[in-house]
């Protein structure tokens, strides 16, 4: 399954946050979306997932047109996402949040709940099993009974990632999954995303961590003030002077070095 965004335009009052952007997120690939702060990356994601109604443009999954502004429909079409500022059920435990991530649970129907208890119980057991596995991968195994609202900033990021994994979606949209996550777990995330890609999923990755973008992305799209200014493989894009000027600025090597010896 692939995601296609065509001629997307989003305006907020006088500001054009996304200006006629088209983007392909093919299956089995990781597509990067980068750009300066406020260039419209999250907005693209919000429009693609129906959280926001675009002024123009259309969203297609597997060549099927999606209704704008209906996040539920979009999600049922197989699209899953994380938010830059984590959205969680704060008064539920980590484990419950994970369980809630799974789709199509018979136990959520009143009828089966009261008349097919066996089916409900079976489904619940298999979901729990998956949740335990994912819990380990995101490094929160010890926190399963902690309320999500009582997690640290980074842990919340990880949990939203876990919920996305539970959903088993074919198209994944990740908004800065690595921000606030510690380096060791970023490595883990990279491995995870690679394996998801290899399973044939379509992944759109918004990230300011250029190391991660270089290592993971098959192609990268760069936005600036809502306009697509570059598109191509990570290396080419990172050498593009326009991208350097607006987004990357000086390379780390040129930065005023203090205690250089520390990272040798």
């Amino acid at each position, binding site marked *: 399954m692939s995601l296609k965004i065509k001629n997307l335009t989003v305006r907020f009052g006088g500001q054009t946050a996304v200006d006629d952007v088209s983007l392909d997120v093919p299956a089995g690939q990781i597509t990067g979306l980068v750009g300066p702060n406020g260039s419209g990356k999250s907005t693209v994601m919000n429009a693609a997932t129906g959280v926001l109604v675009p002024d123009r443009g259309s969203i297609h999954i597997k060549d099927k047109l999606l209704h704008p502004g209906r996040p539920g429909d979009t*999600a049922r079409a197989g699209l899953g996402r994380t938010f830059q500022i984590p959205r969680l*059920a704060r008064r539920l435990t980590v484990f419950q949040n994970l369980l809630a991530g799974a789709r199509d649970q018979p136990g959520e129907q009143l009828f089966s709940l009261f008349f097919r208890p066996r089916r409900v119980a079976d489904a619940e057991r298999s979901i729990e099993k998956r949740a335990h596995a994912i819990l380990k991968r995101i490094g929160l195994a010890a926190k399963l009974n902690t309320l999500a609202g009582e997690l640290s900033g980074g842990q919340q990021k990880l949990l939203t990632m876990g919920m996305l994994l539970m959903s088993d979606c074919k198209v994944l949209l990740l908004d800065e999954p690595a921000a606030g996550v510690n380096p060791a777990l970023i490595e883990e995330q990279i491995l995870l995303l690679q394996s998801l890609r290899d399973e044939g999923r379509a992944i759109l990755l918004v990230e300011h961590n250029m190391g991660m973008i270089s290592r993971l992305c098959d192609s990268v799209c760069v936005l600036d003030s809502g306009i697509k200014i570059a598109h191509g493989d990570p290396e080419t894009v990172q050498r593009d002077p326009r991208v350097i000027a607006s987004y990357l600025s000086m390379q780390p090597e040129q930065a005023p070095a203090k205690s250089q010896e520390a990272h040798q």
Partner: protein
Amino acid sequence: MIEFLIYMGTIAGIWAVLAISLNLQFGITGLVNFGQVLPFAIGAYGAGIATRHELGIPAGVLISLIAAPVFGALVVWPARRMAQDYWALITLGLAEIFRLLMMNVPALGGGVYGLSVTRMPGWSISFSLTLALLAVAYVISERVIRSPLGRMLNVIREDEILASTLGRDPFRYQRSIVMLSWVLAGLAGNLYAHVTGYVHESSFMVIETFVIWTAMILGGAGRTIGVIAGAFFVQALTTSTRFIAQWTDLPSDVVANLRLALVGLVLVLMIVYRPAGIFAERRARHVAED
């Protein structure tokens, strides 16, 4: 005395069913319903209308059983596009509309004269029926709360957008829980009408909704056992103060007011010292896998 306790138990039991119903909507799903007295009134008037047209008690129960969730499905409709605060006021308004209609259109609800209802013969029968209804409500509520459905309703309570990006339509969940809980409240209303033998609009004023809210919050929103305890506590508080009031020698109207002041005071103290209720909501526990 024992008859008195049985009667108080009956009333508290009916109130407990209403509180369970409200808890399913608010405590579990986060729907702020300030018109909880509406399904109660619908149920009660179901009994009244059945008696008036001589349809018999079962027909009345059937009316309540069908009318309450149907109204529920209609009332929850605006929740689809609206912040919770507004839904609260809409339910409050709709409950008032229903009451004022019953009051001012005699053809519907007997107008200001109310409707007579077949009365239950004896307290013990009404008490047993109340306990039975309470037990059913308890089982249903617990089953919902401890299931994937309850979990998803909790997610909706916390964040509707999250629920929809998880592929659920929050509105459908809200609708089914409102319908389910209104069935319970409607039955409670029907039972109540048969206990008092009379329905009148003045029994369904906004203030009754607050009694139910008080029971739920005081007992602990989110937990079935909590809201039941809350209902019994509120009933015990309002009646026990009558006995305290009897001991003084002050003029009767001053005593009556001081009694209510005491109720207010106890309520405030309870909530200040146990803001999460007598039985606070528990977090689910899962065992770690190794």
